[in-house]
């Protein structure tokens, strides 16, 4: 007995080609045979204060019981099951059990309201639904008459379910296991037979795609999609016997589906489930994962948590931290530019690592990480740099539901902070003529459920259209500019995303708000709002006197400071996206003046209309322009600011 998949061994290609024809439950059976009861467990979950392990043989047995239980409840091949469950072993058992019977699973968000759940369950014509707890049961009971196709609701957590015992529509997960056990005794071999009937092209999972407009679509992913995703990741990851994955993002998202059904199953790796949402930091530290893929939010929160803790620390710790951070940043910068670290730096780096970085990373459960990835929303390069300077290998990645998960990631040898890196082996990326990112891979989905038109539109000559605009830089790394629908073209027809540039500018602590113009213009210009607090402190440190915001923003030193910040951002931007002229606006954009939405987003058109004179002056090549601006005070009175606005060239 041993690992099914040794990445170093010669049988590798054989195994891979064998796996390429398997369904997910078939792989589970193989893994159970190969790994049995020994070795690292398939699943760990913290419960009752201890990590409870499930080995591969037991994993298979649980799936068998759930599957046979489902069968005895009338689940047939091609049926669909809904899952409204949290991360936990029961989630994986249910999903693989349904697939073992030739069924399809759909994960729904536990936070969804009752009507949302009923709509989706009705759309997928679910015959059985797995739910987490009483809360979800109550929601389904509320809309029971609207989901007539649902034959049985299986609840995982029995807490508080005592009063529901008489309802034959409901059954506990435990009773389902019991049913399955009984069915198995009277029908030996049925499970294996059902599993072997599966074809790799069968649909395994349907994922709800985040519909920004109207009803969300259901992307159909096959067994093959997940198997290939698993194989692609195995080729990408640093080789190791076992990889501990801590399951953090909801099962209704692609990342944990991709890992739980794809990578961990194919690689025979361990899935770890935290005890509760509140205990995640503790549980993470106890597992000490070597690979993580999380949202940018996770890393931003972690960075600010570290900063806040350090601000409260004693002076010695503070001093040590700042010294180490400076050292780390300097070294990382050199490493990124030259690809290696000069010898003279190795001693300070060693000291910083031993005294500050290691202990700190250990405290947050990241000391064993070999590769950490962040995806989803754009992340501040500064946050990435912060962790990289500490020796945490944090990188960006990119993917979508329709592509079966992440297909683009920064490689270890030459990470570029502001790109999402290179394609995984087996995936191919191309930029279309209108700047859209296209991808081709075995992992790309089979289409949207009962939506032929949307499926047609999702592809272009066999390539999946991501809907994002992007460019490939000189090293072949992919840079995502923004949603294609939101990008703008300049006069020469180059695409740019104001949001993309503005986000980058706002990463500077001195810039609070930025607005980019340039639609149909020869080059880009910007309005900048300085950050009163940070720039104020900066000015005070340099003994620069100032009175109001208007006054501060027109100090010559401040102008130089901001120009420097913009130049720094410019350096990372491709040619047509560089900012050529800018104005430091004499007032803060304000929701009271309708320049921002109440949620703090810039109302671009409105700002354009309001300040069109200044914008025209920038493109007319003027040096300065006199303005009369209206301001609204807090008490509702309006006043007029008369001032001269200087226009700055951002030369290289």
């Amino acid at each position: 007995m041993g690992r099914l998949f040794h990445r170093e061994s010669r049988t590798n290609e054989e195994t891979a080609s064998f796996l390429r024809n398997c369904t997910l439950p078939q792989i589970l059976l193989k893994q159970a045979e190969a790994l049995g009861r020994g070795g690292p467990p398939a699943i760990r979950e913290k419960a009752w204060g201890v990590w409870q392990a499930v080995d591969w043989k037991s994993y298979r047995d649980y799936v068998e019981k759930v599957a046979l239980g489902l069968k005895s409840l009338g689940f047939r091949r091609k049926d669909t099951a809904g899952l409204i469950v949290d991360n936990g072993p029961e989630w994986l058992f249910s999903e693989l059990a349904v697939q073992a019977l030739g069924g399809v699973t759909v994960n729904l968000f536990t936070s969804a309201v009752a009507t949302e759940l009923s709509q989706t369950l009705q759309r997928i014509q679910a015959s059985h639904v797995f739910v987490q707890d009483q809360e979800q049961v109550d929601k389904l009971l509320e809309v029971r008459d609207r989901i007539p196709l649902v034959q049985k609701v299986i609840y995982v957590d029995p807490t508080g379910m005592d009063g529901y015992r008489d309802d034959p529509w409901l059954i506990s997960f435990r009773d389902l296991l019991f049913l399955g056990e009984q069915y198995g005794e009277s029908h030996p071999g049925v499970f294996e037979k059902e599993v072997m009937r599966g074809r790799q092209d069968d649909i395994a999972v349907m994922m709800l795609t985040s519909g920004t407009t109207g009803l969300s679509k259901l992307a159909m992913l096959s067994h093959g999609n997940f198997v290939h995703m698993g194989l692609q990741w195995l080729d990408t990851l640093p080789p190791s016997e076992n990889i501990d994955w801590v399951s953090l993002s909801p099962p209704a998202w692609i990342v944990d589906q991709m890992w739980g059904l794809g990578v961990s199953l194919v690689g025979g790796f361990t899935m770890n489930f935290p005890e509760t949402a509140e205990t995640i930091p503790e549980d993470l530290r106890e597992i000490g994962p070597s690979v993580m893929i999380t949202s940018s939010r996770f890393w931003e929160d972690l960075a600010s948590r570290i900063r806040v803790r350090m601000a409260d620390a004693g002076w010695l710790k503070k001093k040590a931290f700042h010294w180490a951070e400076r050292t780390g940043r300097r070294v990382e910068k050199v490493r990124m530019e030259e690809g290696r670290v000069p010898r003279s730096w190795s001693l300070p780096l060693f000291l910083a690592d031993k005294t500050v970085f290691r202990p700190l990373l250990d405290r947050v459960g990241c000391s064993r990480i070999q590769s950490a990835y962040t995806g989803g929303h754009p992340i501040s390069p500064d946050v990435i740099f912060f962790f990289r300077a500490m020796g945490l290998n944090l990188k960006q990645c990119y993917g979508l539901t329709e592509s079966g998960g992440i297909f683009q990631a920064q490689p270890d040898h030459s990470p570029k902070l502001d790109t999402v890196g290179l394609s995984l082996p087996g995936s191919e990326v191309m930029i279309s003529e209108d700047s859209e990112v296209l991808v081709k891979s075995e992992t790309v989905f089979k289409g949207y459920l009962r939506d032929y038109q949307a499926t047609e539109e999702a592809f272009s000559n066999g390539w999946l259209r991501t809907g994002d605009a992007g460019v490939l830089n000189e090293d072949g790394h992919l840079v995502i500019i923004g949603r294609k629908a939101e990008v703008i073209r300049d006069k020469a027809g180059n695409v740019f995303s104001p949001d993309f540039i503005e986000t980058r500018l706002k990463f500077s602590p001195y810039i609070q708000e930025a607005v980019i113009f340039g639609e149909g213009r020869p080059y880009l210009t910007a309005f900048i709002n300085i950050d009163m607090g940070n720039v104020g402190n900066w000015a005070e440190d340099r003994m620069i006197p100032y009175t109001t915001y208007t006054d501060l923003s027109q100090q010559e030193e401040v102008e130089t400071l901001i120009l420097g910040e913009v130049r720094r951002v410019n350096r990372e931007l491709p040619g047509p996206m560089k900012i050529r002229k800018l104005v430091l606006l004499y007032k803060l954009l304000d929701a009271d003046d309708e320049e921002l939405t109440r949620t703090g987003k810039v109302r671009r058109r409105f700002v354009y209309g309001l300040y069109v004179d200044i914008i025209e002056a920038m493109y007319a090549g003027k040096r300065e322009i006199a303005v009369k601006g209206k301001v609204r005070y807090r008490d509702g009175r309006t006043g007029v600011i008369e001032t001269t606005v200087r226009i700055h060239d951002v030369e290289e």
Partner: protein
Amino acid sequence: MKAFRADPEIFRLTSRDRDRADLRIEGLTLRFGGVVAVHDVTLDVRTGEFLSVIGPNGAGKTSLLNCVTGYYRPQEGIISFNGKNVTRHPPHELVRVGIGRTFQNIELFPGLSVLSNLLLARHIHYGYNFLSAAFFLPSVRREEVRHRRIVEEIIDFLEMQSIRHRLVGSLPYGLRKRVELGRALALEPKLLILDEPFAGMNLEEKEDMVRFLRELHGVWKRTIVLVEHDMSIVMSLSERIAVLNFGEKLAEGTPAEIQGNPEVTRAYLGPAEEA
């Protein structure tokens, strides 16, 4: 696994006899000098029952509880538990016969973690002696594991996983009340006496506590005596209610009977002509 939360060992009903919790209070009188705190009160609590004791401030509710749990020594009357006379027994002996309680003003060890506070309550159930503990014999190890498991079941039941290692002193009030309930449960009492567990809680904390008590009584068939001021909670949880006023039992009955009792209304609102 969450699916296996159904059957915690601590609540497992081994036999009706083991969980028997028949409390009988007969003619109980407690005086502090010339002040009569409790006067000739007779009250029965039957196994599996949820009984609430209500009454205006100073009616003698807590005094009555303190007599039952051994903190006060009544001058007259008999208290018997499962047929055994336990009048004037000290608190630690009453815990051993199976009477556990929480306090109105939280009485925990603020410098210990939640886990330690609960484990400490398991002390009465420890079977090993000093010598076997010193050598950490396999039997000791097994027992320690079992106690930890039971405490963890309580932590799981009361949803305290994330505060397991926190010092009790650093917890907000509502959570400390929850820890108190947890510690009382760790004693594995047959009769659970709760002295104003809802006092000082916000609405959300109250809702959680109601949920726990309902489950304790409804699913795990614990026998509970509750002293509480919040009438909506008392009415929704109790099977039977006893009303005290000036140390005397004024009425006893189902929530509906108590709500319709004019004497009770008078005790709470004062005589009609004064109101």
